[in-house]
């Protein structure tokens, strides 16, 4: 968990760093060159190197997730996006999670005085639709290469296939048994996409997901929050 928090901090601080490097135009965006006449200032105005409005993008991603402390979760996702404009896009995302019992759960299940069952819920798949706002197009200049990137935020809604044991949790005669259910929830994403050769893109993103699901023995629904860290390779047509 600590590792994930560290990673999250790293991503947030990276975004913050990027934002100070490249931002939308403002009157503060004035350049002062030594070779300009004294007191003269210039704006640096460039056209976009990579345009995506009207384009279709596909993304294939690997996921590292933390939906439950009792599960080690990773997975993959496939996304199809349509760029309505340079700043807005809509996408359909399918996520598939691969869950296995965590060391904590194994310890509990193998407790010497008898199996200890935690009340748990895992996420198996998610089908989402996102609306994305991509306000920042930036570049990182190195001495012999320029890297262009987009940074954006997305908010989505979707259906989640989950599995939980609230029905059999207090039944001492039944070992840990998860029952499949379907829930709904939201997903918030923050992503960076670097442009590569042709239409190839490479990116990473952070997802915060909230699923309205049964988390207690009573059967009442509440929101399960979890984070995904995602690495993506994509192509924009």
């Amino acid at each position, binding site marked *: 968990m600590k590792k994930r928090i560290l990673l999250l901090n790293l991503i947030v601080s990276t975004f913050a760093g990027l934002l100070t*490097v*490249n*931002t*939308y*135009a*403002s*009157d*503060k*965006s*004035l*350049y*002062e*060159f030594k*070779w*300009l*006449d004294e*007191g*003269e*200032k*210039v*704006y*640096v*105005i*460039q*056209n*976009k190197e990579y*345009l995506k409005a009207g384009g279709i993008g596909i993304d294939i991603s690997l996921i590292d997730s933390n939906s439950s402390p009792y599960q080690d979760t990773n997975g993959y996702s496939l996304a199809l996006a349509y760029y309505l404009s*340079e700043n807005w896009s809509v996408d359909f995302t399918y996520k598939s999670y691969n869950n296995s019992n965590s060391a904590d759960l194994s310890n509990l299940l193998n407790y010497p005085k008898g199996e200890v069952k935690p009340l748990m819920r895992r996420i198996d798949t998610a089908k989402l639709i996102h609306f994305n706002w991509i306000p920042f*197009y930036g*570049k990182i*200049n190195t001495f012999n290469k*320029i890297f262009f990137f987009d940074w954006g935020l997305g908010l989505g809604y979707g259906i989640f296939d989950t599995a939980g044991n609230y029905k059999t949790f207090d039944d001492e005669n039944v070992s840990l048994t998860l029952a499949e259910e379907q829930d709904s929830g939201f997903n918030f994403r923050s992503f960076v996409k670097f442009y590569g050769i042709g239409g190839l893109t490479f990116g990473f993103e952070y997802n915060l997901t909230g699923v309205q699901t049964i988390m207690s023995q009573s059967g009442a629904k509440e929101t399960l929050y979890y984070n995904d860290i995602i690495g993506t390779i994509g192509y924009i047509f």
Partner: protein
Amino acid sequence: MNKYLLIAIFIITPALANAKGYADMFNIVYRNNLYYSSYIFLKKSVSRGESIAQGKVEKIMDIVHPSVFIHDPELDEFVSKKTAIDYAVAIRRFFLNDFKTAKKKLIRLKRTNMRVEKNYILGLIYLTEKNYKHVANRFKRCVRFASKRRYTHLKPESYVKTFKNRCVQQLARIYFANKDYKRTLKVLDYVRKDDYIWPRFLIDRAWSYYWLGETERSLGSVVTYKAPLLKRFMIPEANYLRGLIYYEMCYFEKAENIYKEFNETTWKYRDVARTISKNRLLRLIISKKEPKEQKNKFLYYYLKGFKKDIRFFSFKQARGHLTAEIKKLSRVKSLRQAQIFLDLLYYYKKAIKEDFQDFLKNVSNDYYLQIRQMRSAFVKLNLMVSLKKRERLAQGKSIVFKDELETKPLGDIPNIDDKFIWDFRGGFWADELGDYAVALQNRCVK
């Protein structure tokens, strides 16, 4: 190729010419990469109606320097015939101002590797006819074929791209002449900034912005010439445009200073551009060392801007080929037939050198004329500044201008394209050159 093979070729040339024909001789010489010698056999075999593989003819047409065609009176024999060397004939006719024949020959060339060059020259011919629709079509085709053309070690990427950019420039100038300034800017965007010719287009961009009324961006384009990387491309016209814009924005001190700067850095050396010899020009462009004398430095840096010009590297390449062929033939020069070939090769070499020297002389003469014209324009500008001084005098104010710069807010710069503004403070990035807008408020509008 060894000496004996060469001896064999030249001993048996007259005999072979009668028995097997020049086409076979061509093939032997061609196989040994003696392209200029192959050209001699090619003409003879075409004259006799012997056929040679199209691919080989194309390669010779591609490799042999155009100056060879221009100075080859033997090509006149083929003016009224349709032959495999129509490209060479067309080039000669073009330079002899026989545009009608050149056009006819070039249009006839259908499947040729020389489509880039063909369309460029046809574009120039239509330009002389003022047929602008055809001009634009030809230059567009030139750009299109340049993107499809394969690069070889003989015609590398730099050659093809330079040719393409010449077509882009011509196309942009047509749109400019038609006052379609937005389209001009769009066309000029096809030239990448890492291309050597790109700095020369800054002035075209600047004028386009100027006529679009975007003086901030126009000024931004010409100011780019002050960047350390591009100093050598600064032309008098760019300085004049700077002065003009500052005057129109009521920054008279700046306009005055630019005139003074022009006098000090350019006008003072104008005579060097006019009187310099052709040999000196050639030495200057080939030299890798900066000359010590200021007046030579003045031209050295101007010529440095032409070091990647297509004419310079095709001159160097042709000289290299010819030197290598002459060296090979010199081994058998005791043979009379070889001596004739050698004389022809020396003649070609001389023709190429003289043409290039003429080009350099034209460049320097043109530079001189530019300086003269800009001086006249500057004098008028200075006169207008003087009138402003007189107005101030009449108002009892000091005649010394002191410009107080007023920064223009970003929102007041019209967004004619999809623009983004970067905030890289304290850095200098080559990719941003030319993408500037000087944030100056027009002081005349109060």
